């Protein structure tokens, strides 16, 4: 049969369409790709902006499958360390509040490509040579100007490629008992926590009792295992660090268990002189052996400390430090690293060798020192024993165990503390209370005197009456973000984007376009104003907004612009 011209034309057109569909051009129709967004279900406010974020992504053509899940679902997915996408048991994207483990921003402890899980905390697989370079310089430059330049390079590269969508920088809003004096800091894991040694409750005499509310129960109360506020709120008052911060206001390091230190010109050799006559709660004397024990334990992979990789990056190994006197420890770093002072000396609590040395690595997390549930005997020199009801530290407060009925952790004042208490609180409780409404009710009834900033009471601040609550706000040094699995073939590596398929050399560029598209689809101003009650600033990069490292000239707010968002997706090869 002879084929008519019309039929032939149709067949040719069909064949052409097939070929086009198979090999190019680099186009796709919406929905362009599927993204699984996990929204932690523990904070209604975050669930609201998470839902909003999902809707906004849908508006630019992304098929978003959002789910409300507890963080216990997110955590194992992201910690597997294989970078698989959600559909294969890993993850695509989730929402998170984040901050550094030191007041000086330490992005080099989080975003360097060599810090991938399980030993590191680069759960997002940020793997960008320019970012790595900036982080290396940032960490190893002694010269303040050079370090500031490295911060700027890091911020600029981040701003250009947006490995995460930084939504906003929240402010910490805390309501306290109006009779409470001396509460002048927010909490900040792991270096600022409730410091009731400086609290005074008016009219309570010299034997006051105070209570502090913390949202979630802790995972572990051994400092090196700390995963967040819920842990450090409790173990923080028990321990000390070598250097501590003077105040939230000036955020300056001052001697803690260390008296002073010297540093060589190249920043590699440090000699740290320790404070003499400091005693552990057990009565044993604090010495340089305790510092060595703490670092040895952190570096020992058998203990599974999540900070192991960062500590190894800083110290190199256990051979880099040695006890050179009863109160002196000498350190030879492989290279200068800012994290040594700002993080290892300034943020990591020192643990007692005499009390924890005998605990096997596998038992550490379940030990009474970690749970405060029960009691254990500590052998002290001179043949004595000390019965501990929780962690053993040198800090201003002595652990008195956990009361499961009241969901409260009890502390009593350490009368032998090396720094005098300035307040009138002698007994202190940290109580687990879940829910913003509940914590405000507790404050109103007088059951607590202050609370953790995690309650996000900002939107309800206007409902607090001066008779029962005084509202205080602090710069938080935190940020809220949508984080992506940067090994995802679409918005991570970009190999499965139209542009990436067409030109594999431009795959990473395509992925960055997608992330920038999502970023421009986020109404940050409205999120701050409408959901966070106005307590916050629009987000750009993972550096605290009020820190001196934040370059306000460079980091202008990212505009909410859906047209621009679609334009970025088009650059990645997607067509509307």
């Amino acid at each position, binding site marked *: 049969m002879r084929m008519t011209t019309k039929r032939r034309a149709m067949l040719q057109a069909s064949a052409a369409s097939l070929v086009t569909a198979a090999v190019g051009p680099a186009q796709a129709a919406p929905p362009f790709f599927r993204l*699984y967004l996990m*929204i932690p*279900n*523990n904070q*209604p*406010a975050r*669930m*609201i902006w998470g*839902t*909003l974020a*999902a*809707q906004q992504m849908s508006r630019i053509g992304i098929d978003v*499958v*959002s*789910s*409300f*899940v507890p963080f216990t*679902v997110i955590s194992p997915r992201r910690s597997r360390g294989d970078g698989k996408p*959600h*559909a*294969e048991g890993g993850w695509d994207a989730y929402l998170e509040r984040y901050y550094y483990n030191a007041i000086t921003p330490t992005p080099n402890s989080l975003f360097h490509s060599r810090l991938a899980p399980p030993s590191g905390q680069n759960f997002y697989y940020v793997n960008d040579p320019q970012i790595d370079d900036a982080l290396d310089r940032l960490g190893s430059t002694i010269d303040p100007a050079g370090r500031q330049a490295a911060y700027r390079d890091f911020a600029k590269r981040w701003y250009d490629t947006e490995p995460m969508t930084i939504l906003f920088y929240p402010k910490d809003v805390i309501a306290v008992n109006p009779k409470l004096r001396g509460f002048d800091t927010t909490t900040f894991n792991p270096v600022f926590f409730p410091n009731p040694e400086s609290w005074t409750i008016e009219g309570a005499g010299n034997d006051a009792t105070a209570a502090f509310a913390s949202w979630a129960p802790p995972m572990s109360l051994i400092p090196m295992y700390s995963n967040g506020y819920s842990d450090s709120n409790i173990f923080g008052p028990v321990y000390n660090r070598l250097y501590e911060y003077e105040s939230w206001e000036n955020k300056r390091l001052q001697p803690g268990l260390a008296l002073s230190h010297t540093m060589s010109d190249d920043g590699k050799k440090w000699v740290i002189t320790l404070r003499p006559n400091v005693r552990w709660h057990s009565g044993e004397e604090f010495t340089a052996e305790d510092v060595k024990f703490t670092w040895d334990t952190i570096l020992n992979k058998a203990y599974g400390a999540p900070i192991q990789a960062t500590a190894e990056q800083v110290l190199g190994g256990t051979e880099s430090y040695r006890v050179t006197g009863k109160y002196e420890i000498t350190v030879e770093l492989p290279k200068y690293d800012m994290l040594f002072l700002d993080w290892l000396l300034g943020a990591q609590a020192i643990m007692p060798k005499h009390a924890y040395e005998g605990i096997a690595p596998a038992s550490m997390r379940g030990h009474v020192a970690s749970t405060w549930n029960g009691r254990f005997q500590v052998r002290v020199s001179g043949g004595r024993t000390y019965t501990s009801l929780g962690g053993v530290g040198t800090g201003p407060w002595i652990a008195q165990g956990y009361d499961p009925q009241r969901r409260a952790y009890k502390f009593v004042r350490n009368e032998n503390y090396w720094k005098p208490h300035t307040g009138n609180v002698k007994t202190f409780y940290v109580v687990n209370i879940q*829910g*913003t*409404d509940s914590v405000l009710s507790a404050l109103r009834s007088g059951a607590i005197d202050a609370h953790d900033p995690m309650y996000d009471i900002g*939107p*309800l601040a*206007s*409902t607090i009456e001066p008779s029962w609550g005084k509202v205080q706000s602090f710069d938080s040094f935190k940020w809220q973000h949508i984080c992506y699995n940067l090994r995802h073939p679409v918005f991570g590596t970009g190999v499965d984007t139209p542009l990436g398929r067409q030109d594999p050399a431009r795959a990473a560029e395509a992925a960055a376009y997608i992330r920038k598209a999502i970023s421009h689809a986020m*109404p940050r101003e*409205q999120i701050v*104003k*409408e*959901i966070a009650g106005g307590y916050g600033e629009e987000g750009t990069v993972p550096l605290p907004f009020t820190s001196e490292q934040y370059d306000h000239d460079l980091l202008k707010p990212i505009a909410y612009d859906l047209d621009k968002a679609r334009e970025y997706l088009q650059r990645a090869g997607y067509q509307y």
Partner: protein
Amino acid sequence: MSDATLPAIAAPRQRAPGIWRQSWYRFRRNRAGLIGLAMVTLVVLVALLAPFAAPFAPDDTSAMLRGAARRAPSALHWLGTDRNGYDVFTRMIYGARTALAVGLGAMIIASVIGVIIGGIAGYAGGMVDELLMRFAEFFMVIPVFVVILAVVRLFGIVVVGTWLEDIPNLNLMTIIVLLGCFEWPPIARMARAEFLRLRNSEFVEAAHCIGSSRRDILLRHILPNAMPPLIVLVALGIGGAILAETMVSFLGFGDPRAVSWGQSLYFNYEALKVAPWAVLSPGAALFVTVLGFNLLADGLTDAFNPRTRQ
């Protein structure tokens, strides 16, 4: 026989009103039942007319984008806006669809399972009856709520990457199916009791005598007569299922893409003092719906079985 009775015998035979008509006569005299019916009718109408009655799309967050979240009721937003920037009135209207879908869906599943199992147990008796009733009791002691939370979580993992994922509102569907699968035992027990009672009744024996098949006896004679008490249970169950879904959503395990009163309550309860309308409206809608079904069930009980009232 007296003379007075003669005319009645001579009169043409009138068919006595059936059980349904008699029940309707009685139901009409039950004020609470009628109020319940009116409430349920209102909810059903609202659900059916939602696209026409709602002033905004259910996922419209434009109020948030123009800085008008948590705004008090106004001419534009009759019941105000909530923390998400949703129009509260719109979400309340669309929430009726979800509530009815959950209530009706769950109870349809429960009824089908319950009537089949209860009917077989009641009609067959003996060992079959024993086994099926123990099976029903097994389901009654399982904490439904915990199972729903666990299965919703598990299902959220299992379906990833499969065709099931494309089912709209899969989380909600899962909740409906689970509620249906755990709410059938009371219906089965009631069905069993009714089948047991009716299988020895005269009209069933008569049906046997005229050679009716077992299927006919079950479906045409026993089942219609067993329905009244089952309908009461189903009406009560609808309210319970709606509350169960609300509780799951209120705990943060609901379907992010569904419009649910429970979810509205969850997102807004902390702002009760700041934007009470965002909580009171879904709360009121939930109250009206559940109360409506309960009053309706109460009225149906009186209508189908007036002796219980006496």
